[in-house]
């Protein structure tokens, strides 16, 4: 159950700068901690987040062990055309999650 949460305005004016907020459920285990029995807990983090707007990549972020659990990433872009925003998270142990949001530009 790792449903990402995306928040974009449904409608924006052409040329307007708008905010995109994303939140995903992930433990972001650093790999530096030890269990109560003394074994190292293996790293399990999201390593890459990217967002594309009508197929063109507009934002990308590398994530590292210092990121908190349930990473929240917010960024801005300019409204050009109506279309789809695609979000992708990839990480350790084959973690992969995608989400989409549609936006209407007037």
């Amino acid at each position, binding site marked *: *159950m790792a*449903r990402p*949460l995306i928040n974009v305005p449904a409608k924006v004016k052409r040329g307007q700068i708008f905010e995109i*907020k994303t939140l*995903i*459920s992930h433990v972001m285990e650093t790999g530096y*901690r030890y269990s109560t029995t003394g074994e190292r807990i293996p790293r399990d983090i999201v390593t890459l987040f990217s967002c594309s707007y009508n197929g063109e990549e507009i934002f990308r972020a590398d994530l590292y062990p210092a990121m908190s*659990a*349930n990473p*929240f990433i917010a960024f801005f872009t300019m409204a050009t055309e109506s279309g789809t925003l695609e979000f992708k998270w990839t990480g350790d142990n084959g973690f992969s999650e995608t989400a989409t949001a549609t936006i209407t530009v007037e």
Partner: protein
Amino acid sequence: MNRSAPSLCALGHRAAMAAVITLAVAGSAYTADIPLDQRRSGYADLGRDSKAMQDDDTVNPATLWVLDGEVLWNQKAGAANRACADCHGDATTSMKGVAARYPAFSPARNGPIDLEQRINLCRTERQQAPPLPFESRDLLALTAFVGRQSRGMAIAEASDERLKPFIEAGRKLFTQRLGQINLSCAQCHDDNWGKRLAGVLLPQGHPNGYPLYRLEWQGVGSLQRRLRNCLIGMRAEPYEYGAPENVNMELFLMWRARGLKIETTAVRP
């Protein structure tokens, strides 16, 4: 998955000893309950960023748990093959106000049960499914989802006469000195709230936002987890999850916070 130690434990030994001495002096005159009009939610002491995190559901990470809880609410479970929704219908109406009046008296247990225990009773009796373990993702998700339906409502004053002795038992525990540091809950949260224990602000300790997202936990946790944290910080042995002492304490804390608004799911440092 407790990433860092409870705040009291994180204090250096010397700082802890200094705190004990200060509190021992201050604690000699126990001032009893906080006047009703002086009570304040922990929200009031949050920084601007944490407030913004709690206020916006799309930013509050506890929303991830609430959404999971909504899925579980509609999911059939157990030998009875029934979902919560099959009996209770739409949670936005049927569960409205429920979290504001729990823990409630259970005739079967002859004592109070909290919301987590109520959910598990439903699971075992109505759904004929195994109970969900305390602090499991699923139980927290369901509790957060049910609790969210009461957001903004005032905590109801316990009117059930049968609860009275349990409130008193909770109060007794709240004012009792415990652990190696020999502190009571009341010494910090009744007598010295608003002051600092080393660098940490002492809140009044109201339970109006649980289950909540605690930044220190990097996740959602229950009120019982928080109570156990405090006890470990006092170097006392915490009560087991679901122990009557914990539930009595929850009940007393809800009585003590009567009238405050439910903030589930809150964000706290």
